[in-house]
């Protein structure tokens, strides 16, 4: 795994000392909130409804057992005993005291973590496919490139004050598990005709109040040019992105207003000037960074595990877990396992300190000490021998972490909503909990099949509702929580933005409404193999509208 180089470590330590001093001066009243706010935001500290909130970056979602243990320690010592994993592959602590934040940041620095660039109009945490380096279908591990982009964008003087925040995602496979079409820049690692690495580059995706899918700006940028190309996009955005209106400042608006062809021309022009210069990525440098992400030493194993198969036959709940939560690995005899943070009726993305410790131990014992955070708000053990799955399952069950629902209807994404967030219009988490309870029975989930529900508490869309197969958006209707339902959204390579199906529902009605949608799908699908999304795309909104609102 990537190790901080000297520069990173020294810089992060310096930043902690600097921020400690700023906090001290603020607490003594030597600087005002107006002076302090930008400083705390630069260090990931927000003020929410009940307390400060600290957002910590988990670069490309990769964590070691040591880091996870430290997060558990922080949850226990400085928070209320839990943390919230987010769709941005970050973790947020909801209850830290400002006076403790410097101590937290210095504990994080010891394990090479920080909260820099988790806020503000800069390039945010670069996200990646959570099965990176493990998935059977990837062209190459996307994380070295996410890391190269992280290094390039960290504290980049030119790009620290962009018109608006900027999010980059990288996927290593054609099957997009990183929602790259919903990011300001999305990259897909590809192989050229000669086997060399390059990237399909997408630009101008985003959610929020104006959801847009990114457009392909270049089908193949060779590895050596990728930094220069991304830099060229940022330069054009920095010059022409709108600064007059916060709601029109994201690059998606620039793409929309300028047109992808004209934008491509501008980017190519810029690119032609910087190509091959200091931003070139020499093969040796790419190789050096790739070495940090070298796969662990896999043993030679048979592709099928007799041990696991026997255990499955003996234990139907394990069998169901295996069907639901394992993902095919590139090495024979290995798998990637999703640790669901969506217990039935629970809080999507929350993990207690004890659970974090348990995951750290499990990863250490069986999974090369590697853990991932997924944008679906789950944790992943990317490399695990199939033979060890029964033991891991036992250990997960003991920690309350063996929910078998990855990709199922109860694997719900929800933002913090009005329970925590100062910007919210309505609650998200209680809606998620109720839906999870309504559909929680294993037979019911199996009957429904893959279906994603995504919930945001306001139009900022942190809960990805625009790309939920069923999306739920909380709005304020004359002081009451009110929920709009959209259908047909999807974040992967066949990305689409969901369509609002009709008038919304009060909290009491929204659970039933979702069930009506689900039942309509089950009634009309061609076979149990036809998923909700496929059926919706075939049927259109009409039958769902009719079921919800009558003819």
């Amino acid at each position, binding site marked *: 795994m990537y190790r901080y180089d000297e520069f990173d470590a020294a810089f992060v330590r310096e930043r902690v000392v600097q921020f400690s001093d700023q906090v001290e001066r603020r607490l003594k009243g030597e600087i005002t909130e107006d002076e302090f706010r930008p400083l705390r935001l630069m260090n990931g500290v927000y003020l929410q409804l009940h307390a400060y909130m600290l957002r910590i970056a988990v670069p490309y979602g990769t964590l070691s057992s040591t880091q996870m243990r430290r997060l558990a320690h922080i949850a226990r010592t400085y928070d209320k*005993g839990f943390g919230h994993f987010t769709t941005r592959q970050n973790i947020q602590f909801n209850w830290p005291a*400002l006076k403790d934040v410097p101590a937290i940041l210095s504990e994080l620095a010891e394990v090479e973590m920080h909260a820099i660039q988790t806020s503000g109009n800069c390039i945010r945490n670069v996200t990646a496919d959570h099965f990176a380096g493990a998935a059977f279908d990837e062209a190459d591990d996307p994380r070295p490139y996410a890391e190269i982009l992280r290094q390039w964008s960290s504290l980049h003087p030119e790009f620290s004050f962009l018109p608006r925040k900027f999010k980059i995602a990288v996927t290593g496979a054609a099957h997009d598990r990183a929602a790259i079409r919903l990011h300001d820049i999305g990259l897909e690692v590809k192989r050229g005709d000669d086997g060399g690495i390059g990237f399909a580059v997408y630009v101008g995706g985003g959610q929020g109040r104006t959801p847009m899918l990114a457009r392909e700006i270049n089908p193949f940028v060779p590895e050596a040019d990728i930094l220069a190309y991304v830099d060229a996009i940022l330069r054009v955005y920095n010059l022409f992105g709108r600064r007059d209106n916060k709601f029109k400042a994201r690059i998606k608006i620039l793409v929309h207003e300028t047109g992808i062809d004209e934008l491509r021309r501008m980017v190519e022009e810029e690119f032609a000037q910087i190509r091959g210069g200091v931003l070139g990525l020499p093969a040796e440098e790419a190789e050096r960074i790739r070495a940090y992400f070298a796969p662990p030493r896999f043993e030679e194993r048979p592709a099928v595990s007799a041990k696991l198969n026997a255990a499955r036959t003996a234990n139907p709940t394990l069998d169901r877990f295996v069907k639901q939560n394992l993902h095919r690995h590139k090495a024979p005899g290995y798998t990637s396992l999703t640790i669901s943070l969506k217990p039935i009726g629970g809080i999507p993305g929350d993990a207690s300190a004890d659970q974090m410790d348990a995951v750290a131990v499990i990863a250490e014992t069986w999974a090369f000490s590697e853990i991932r955070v997924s944008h679906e708000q789950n944790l992943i053990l990317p490399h695990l021998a199939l033979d060890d799955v029964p033991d891991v399952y036992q250990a997960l069950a003991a920690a309350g972490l063996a929910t078998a629902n990855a990709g199922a209807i109860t694997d719900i994404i929800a933002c913090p909503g009005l329970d925590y967030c100062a910007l919210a219009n309505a609650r998200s988490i209680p809606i998620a909990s109720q839906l999870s309870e309504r559909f929680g029975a294993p037979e019911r989930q199996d009957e429904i099949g893959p279906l994603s529900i995504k919930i945001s508490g306001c139009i900022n869309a942190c809960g990805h509702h625009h790309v939920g197969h069923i999306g739920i958006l909380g709005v304020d209707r004359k002081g009451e929580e009110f929920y709009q339902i959209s259908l047909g959204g999807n974040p992967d390579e066949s990305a689409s933005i969901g369509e609002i199906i009709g008038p919304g529902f009060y909290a009491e009605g929204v659970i039933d409404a979702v069930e009506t949608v689900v039942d309509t799908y089950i009634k009309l699908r061609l076979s149990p193999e036809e998923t909700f999304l496929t059926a919706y795309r075939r049927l259109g909104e009409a039958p769902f509208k009719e079921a919800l609102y009558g003819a």
Partner: protein
Amino acid sequence: MLEILTANRLYDGDVVYRTAAGDWVADVDAAELIDSTDRLTLAVAAANADVKASKVLDVAPIAVEVTDGHIVPKRLRERIRAFGPTVKSDHRPGAN
């Protein structure tokens, strides 16, 4: 209309309410109930002095009702601030 003054305490961010004595406390029932514009103006001025003095931030008057002898904010957002998140915590073994 009945109002009280709320803010977040600077050093820990906790939700606090202003008492008649001018203290900031976590217990919403201890807040000073204000029913006149004059009184509100005075209280806000005093509260803003506490902002200047770096004790609290984000001072705001909020509308409340008194139900069964208890102060209950009118808006859901303020009820959640006063009484805590409405999420269940029983799904997080080991959390307190």
